[in-house]
């Protein structure tokens, strides 16, 4: 295996609605920033991989317009996934294993504000068994929360504590959308939104983008004083029928964690892509994280949830903390699909 590292990370300041910019305008400053932070020029990039959702843009092949942001002339080597940017990073990592790419740019973005997000996302579901009922992501996550509460995997107090911790951690994250000092007890006094979820158990709706630069072997060492090396990365998926799965566990996270080697050494911090509060508790269990592990020092997806970027941001946030020397070994996680259907786990280490 070739050693590949995250050497640079940039993101927007995530907001509820970025009305005054289109997708490429929203993305452009992030691309400029991530390249500058890597100390390179654009012509050093051998491969570009992006992640976005046509459902959000409301058009087919919508990612093509953002290629203007990377400058596709003369022709570049480029790919795209209709998934969170964490999976675009995975594709770039695989490509780099083949040896002909030393530096890769990965970016992803999502503008959720133009449509009614809860309704839009129902269109991604099974067209025969689910979509006719318009089951929105909040209602589906609430089913999972109910199952987890019934099984004793999580309590409503723990869910509120996850939210309070996220808001507090986000105080030091300038990109976050929601932050503040709140007590779990006062959160619990709020009314249900889609029971058993309260509004704060759900992620904010965000517009935003993120990008990372990957570099291999000695190129990474030349460009970065302390690269965040990818020591293990794996993603697994569960059946798409909700009723077939055990919603109180994240089996695919457990599998990905084993293959990524999470338990080979001690973990300093974890950035978990848990858009709903109860999912953080399920993921901690799946990854075997004890109380000594700092979870979501960025505030996580409850602080800002730009769809298609929120997973890549977890990898970037974890890498940044390794690069600056605050952590030696971190786990980053990304999810896709309803109720944690598909999960990616990445182990990052400093040298």
């Amino acid at each position, binding site marked *: 295996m070739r050693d590949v590292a995250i050497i640079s990370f940039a993101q927007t300041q995530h907001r509820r609605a970025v*009305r*005054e910019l289109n997708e490429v305008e929203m993305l452009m400053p992030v691309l400029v920033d991530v390249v500058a932070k890597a100390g390179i020029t654009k012509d050093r990039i051998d491969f570009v991989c992006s992640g976005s959702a046509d459902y959000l843009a*409301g*058009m087919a092949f919508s990612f093509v317009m953002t290629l203007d942001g990377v400058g596709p002339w003369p022709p570049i080597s480029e790919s795209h996934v209709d998934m969170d940017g964490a999976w675009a990073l995975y594709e770039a990592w695989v490509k780099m294993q083949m040896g002909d790419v030393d530096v890769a740019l990965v970016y992803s973005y999502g503008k959720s504000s*133009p449509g*009614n997000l*809860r*309704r839009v996302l*129902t*269109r991604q579901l099974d*067209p*025969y*068994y*689910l979509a*006719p*009922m*318009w*089951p*929105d992501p909040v*209602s*589906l996550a*609430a*089913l*999972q*929360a*109910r*199952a987890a509460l*019934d099984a004793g995997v999580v309590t409503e107090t723990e869910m509120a504590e996850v939210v309070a911790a996220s808001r507090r951690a986000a105080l030091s994250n300038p990109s976050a959308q929601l932050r503040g000092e709140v007590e779990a007890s006062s959160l619990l006094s709020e009314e*249900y*939104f*889609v*029971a*058993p*979820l309260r509004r704060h158990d759900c992620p904010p709706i965000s517009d935003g983008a993120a990008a990372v630069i990957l570099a291999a072997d000695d190129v990474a060492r030349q460009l970065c004083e302390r690269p965040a090396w990818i020591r293990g990365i794996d993603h697994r998926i569960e*059946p798409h*029928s*909700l*009723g*077939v799965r055990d*919603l109180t566990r994240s089996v695919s996270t457990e599998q990905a964690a084993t293959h990524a080697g999470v338990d080979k050494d001690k973990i300093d911090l974890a950035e978990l892509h848990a858009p709903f509060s109860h999912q953080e508790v399920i993921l901690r269990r799946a990854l075997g994280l004890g109380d000594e592990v700092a979870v979501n020092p960025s505030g996580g997806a409850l602080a800002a949830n730009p769809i298609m970027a929120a997973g890549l941001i977890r990898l970037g946030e974890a890498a940044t903390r390794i690069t600056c020397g605050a952590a030696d070994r971190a786990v980053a996680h990304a999810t896709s699909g309803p109720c944690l259907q598909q999960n990616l786990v990445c182990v990052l280490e400093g040298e």
Partner: protein
Amino acid sequence: MAEPDVLVAPSTIEYPFRRTTGPVIGAFLTALREGFLVGIKSSDGKVIVPPVEYDPYTADALTEIVEVGDAGEVTAWSWVAEPLDGQPLDRPFAFALIKLDGADTAMLHVVDTGGDPAAIATGMRVRARWKPPRPVGASEEDDATGAHRVGSILDIECFVPEGEN
């Protein structure tokens, strides 16, 4: 900072295609139109409802369609106090995973308790409330009204607490 004056234009997306549903999903939808429910036997003999073409764990092709009951047990639920456009009921209702009698997996549908969130609980029994049969000679326009069964998951209007229908 003042909100900039931004030009916006509406864009409405449609997906106006007809798709062939095949031998498994087609069997399920046909059964719905006729007023009953079917599942399929998985590689290890469990009954999956709604049926899937391939085993979710072994990827074996599945073929053994079996009838299941139209009543069952709520295994998880969420309470939608403010239904969104398009959702099956326009008053507060529950989305629920329902394990039908004879099935080993749960199916997503909606439960109508007359708007009462206290009237649903995990483990409670619910029964399908069906739309009326498709009239002989019904046209495509008639089918589009949603007034009768056509071979859709919405042929079941909702589930209701057992004993209420």
